[in-house]
Each structure stands twice: as C-alpha cells, then as structure tokens.
C-alpha cells in the first residue's frame, strides 16, 4: 500500500492514542495522530492528572489538620483558590506540552481537527483527506448525562466542571454517583471545606471493588465527614436563588425529598464517544451502546482498523488504554503482541486510597476457585503509624490448592504504589509463598503485602493469626 499517506493514522490523542502513536513511531511506522480538542485527551486535560493534583492539595490540607498531634500548629490558614486552579492547570500544561514534544520526537504528524471516515482507508480532517494502511480509533469517552439534572458547568457540573474550584468553596456539595470519580471529588471538596454528600443508585459504591475493601473504605470516608447514601437517586434538579434544589428518592421505599446544594456533580458513568467519526463509512461496527469492540490484538471487525481505550470497552481506565495502544501499534508493525493482561488494576486516589488488582473475593468464588485469604490491617504497620494513617488493610485472595495469588485489595495510604508488586505477582503467576519469602524493606507499607501473604498461611508476624 505504497500509495497511502501514512502507515497508520491514530484518531484521538488521549493516553490510548498517544501511546499507540509513539510506539508506532518507535517501530518505524509513518504515523499521524488526529486530535480535535487537546493532546492528552480526557486523562491529562480533565481526568487522571488534574484530579490527582486537586487530591494532593486536599491531602496536604488534611495532613496539616493532623499535624497538631505531633506539635505542629498553624495559626491561620488561607487558600487562594485562583492559585489552586492555576497550579493544577500548570501541571496539565506541562504534561500535555511534554506529550506534544514526545510525538514530535518520535516523528508523529499531529493533525488538528475532527477525523471522519470517508472510506475504509481515508479520513477527512478539517476538509483535508488523508489515507492510511491502518487506523487506530482512540476516541475515548465522555460523561454520561442524567435526564432531569442538566449540567450547566456552573452549579451543576460534570467531572470537567468540577475541576474548576469555585470561590468561595461551595458550602453544600452533592455528588450523584458513588464511583471512583464521585469519591475523588467528594474528598477534594470535603477537605477544602464543603459539606459533601454522595448518593448512589446501586446498593454498593465503587463497583468492581472487593466488598470488604469497599466497606472499610466507606467507613473511613464517612469518618472523614462524607455522607454516603446508597440505593438513592436524584430525579431532578432546579437552580434557585438559594441553591440547587434536588429531588432525591430512596429507591427501596420510593420516598422522595428535596435537598438544597450549592454545587451538584453528576458522575454517574461515562459513555463511549464516536460522534462525527462516521465509523460506518469504513464499515466499522459500533455496538448499541456506542462501543467499537476489538479482539485481543485490538482489531475491529475491519482487520486494518483497530480500536483501543475507552471507546473499545470497559474498564474505562487510562492504563488499559495505554496497554491497548501499545498492542495495536505493535500488531500493525508486525509483532505478535496481544492484550493478554491477567488483571487490570483499579484505584480510587483518595486518602487513604482504595486500590486493587485481580479477582475480588466474590469473583473468585463465583468462578469456582477454592480460596484462602489473608488480611493485614494497616493499624499493625509501624510505617502506617509514623504516617498517621492506620485505617485500612491489605487483603490477599489465593487459590487454595496452588497458592496462586488471585487478587490483592488494599485500603490505605499509598495503596496504588503497592499495586506494583501485586500486579507483577499476578502477571508472573506468583504464589503467596513467593511474596512471603521475598524480603521487604522495613519499615515500609509494602511489608503489609508480605504479611497478608503470610496471613494466608496463618503465619503473619504482626497480627494474631486465627
């Protein structure tokens, strides 16, 4: 296909897309990437990164409140909200600038504008046509809408609007949706002074996470002052002079009441984004729910067109998008790559964090595994004590006969940093013994992973094994 403009055109420059494009460039493919908004996609611009910046600021505020315990006191604390927003934007700009530089360094052509398929080898961007032997669709996702609760990005916001902290900080904040995004914003606003309530339609918050871990996590969040109501939904919201009036319904009893908030976040999920793409012109199948599914090599139904990231399916997570991006690029370059991950980690980046990888206890049982488990409470960790963060635990699920690690679920400080070991253990098919026999530095939070593995064998040292 020597008459094509490019070997591969990537559509969408979020984490999935830019990983695909950079790897394609590294592998010597003539590569272009199309972006209609900003390089970096949701993740860098209005997702992973700015939320973590806000959470860090919120965490420092929380820490200073506990600093009195060790004698450090602050007479008066002021928060310059414009500066907070600006600092966060600065980090985003540094990172997106970095990605642009990396695309350039890897000889990737960046095309600005919306890409629409013309036929299966041609896209149109800003009136210009470009042909390629392969395409990688990485158009991502956007917030799902909640009928009756219209987002105005001022007082009723989605995750993008919620990233701009208003001045003053809203006194009463409602998060509709008890998923990862809902909790992360709940903590930011809570730590900055809002009274925060989360309502969740389902019986459980943080779908996909282990039930014990979620119970411990919500216990801690409630203790921090966040109110959480499950099996509760918002029917409609109306902006009035004294705030947003939200009709809230108890799903079980059907009972309705109206509560008033100064800011309402709609975070009930995300939906794949394919508007304007004209996937049908290339013959690419789109599901009823708007996904463009792909196989293990990330191929859609059209063999030279690939799909990755949020638009390809759940879980909608940046690191899944990145992995799929690398796989797609490598497959196009003729390598035998495959999205063969044993597990995709999940994290709520609050403080403490909730982080997990692999099967939950319920999933393991459902799949017919005979399991054993080990739980190590953070309260028994010397390091956790010195960090003033003794809430949470590390729970390890292991297959009884083989001792194979099936899942690790962590509630605690820096839980996401501990996932590295757990994730490698799963991919390497490690056993609990492998972890228990590995020396872990003292005093670290990671010793808790070792202790959880020891607890599986009823041989933990710093807890009484039962």
């Amino acid at each position, binding site marked *: 296909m020597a008459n094509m403009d490019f070997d591969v055109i990537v559509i969408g420059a979020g984490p999935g897309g830019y990983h695909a494009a950079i790897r394609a460039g590294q592998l010597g493919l003539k590569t272009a990437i199309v972006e209609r908004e900003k390089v970096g996609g949701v993740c860098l611009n209005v997702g992973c990164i700015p939320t973590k910046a806000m959470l860090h600021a919120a965490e420092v505020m929380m820490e200073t409140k506990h600093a009195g315990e060790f004698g450090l006191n602050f007479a008066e604390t002021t928060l310059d909200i414009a500066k907070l927003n600006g600092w966060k934007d600065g980090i985003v700009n540094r990172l997106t600038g970095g990605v642009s530089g990396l695309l350039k360094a890897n000889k990737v052509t960046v095309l600005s504008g919306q890409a629409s398929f013309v036929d299966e080898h041609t896209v149109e961007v800003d009136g210009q046509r470009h042909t390629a032997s392969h395409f990688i669709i990485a158009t991502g996702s956007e917030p799902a809408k909640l009928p009756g609760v219209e987002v105005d990005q001022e007082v009723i916001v989605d995750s993008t609007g919620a990233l701009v902290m208003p001045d003053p900080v809203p006194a009463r904040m409602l998060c509709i949706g008890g998923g990862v995004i809902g909790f992360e914003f709940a903590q930011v606003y809570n730590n900055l002074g809002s009274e925060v309530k989360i309502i969740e339609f389902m019986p459980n918050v943080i779908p996909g996470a282990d039930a014990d871990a979620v119970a411990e996590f919500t216990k801690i969040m409630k203790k921090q002052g966040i109110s959480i109501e499950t099996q509760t939904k918002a029917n409609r919201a109306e902006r009035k002079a004294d705030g947003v009036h939200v009709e809230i319904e108890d799903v079980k009893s059907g009972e309705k009441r109206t509560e008033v908030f100064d800011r309402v976040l709609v975070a009930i999920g995300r939906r794949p984004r394919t508007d304007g793409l004209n996937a049908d012109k290339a013959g690419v199948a789109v599901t009823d729910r708007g996904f463009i599914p792909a196989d293990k090599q990330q191929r859609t139904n059209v063999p030279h067109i690939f799909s990755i990231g949020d638009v390809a399916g759940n879980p909608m997570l940046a690191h899944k998008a990145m992995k799929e991006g690398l796989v797609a690029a490598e497959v196009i370059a003729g390598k035998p790559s495959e999205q063969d991950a044993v597990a995709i980690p999940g994290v709520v980046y609050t403080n403490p964090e909730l982080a997990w990888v692999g099967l939950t206890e319920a999933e393991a049982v459902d799949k017919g595994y005979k399991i054993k488990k080990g739980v190590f409470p953070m309260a028994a960790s010397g390091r956790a004590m010195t960090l003033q963060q003794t809430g949470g635990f590390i729970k390890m699920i292991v297959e009884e006969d083989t001792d194979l690690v099936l899942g690790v679920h962590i509630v605690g400080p820096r839980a996401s940093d501990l996932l590295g070991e757990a994730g490698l253990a799963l*991919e*390497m098919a490690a056993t609990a*013994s492998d972890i228990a026999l590995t020396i872990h530095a003292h005093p670290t939070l990671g010793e808790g992973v070792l202790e959880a593995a020891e607890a599986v064998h009823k041989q933990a040292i710093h807890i009484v094994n039962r």
Partner: protein
Amino acid sequence: APSPQAAREAGSVGAAAGRSDGRVLAVPAARQLAREMGIDLKDVRGSGPNGRIRIADVAGHIKAQAPAASAAAPV
C-alpha cells in the same frame, strides 16, 4: 488454569540451568519446594525464560523421577 503469562513463558524457553554467575534461576517457592523434597535445582529443567524454574517444574521433575521407580513393578 495456566495464566497467559505462563503461556508466554512457554513460548520462550531458554537454556537449562548453568549460568556463569552460578545462580540457578528459580522463584522463591520453587526453591523452598526443592529443599523440602531434597532436590538439587541444578537437576531441574526450568520452563520459564532463561530456564527459570517454577513450582510446576519442580513438581514435574519429581513426577518424572517417580515412574522410573514404579516402572520396575509392571502391572
């Protein structure tokens, strides 16, 4: 069930033990099992990259030794 990782490893079996640094590449649990069974890891063929020995390799080694003994007693 064997993990995809195991399949990936099987595709890239390296040479058996005998590294220049004298180290036998084995995961901790395989080292422990070998000690328990009184097996010298140098005699075990690892199925992982670089001949890395997993528990299953030690177990397989034990099984491979066993038939030799039972072969003497035909049915």
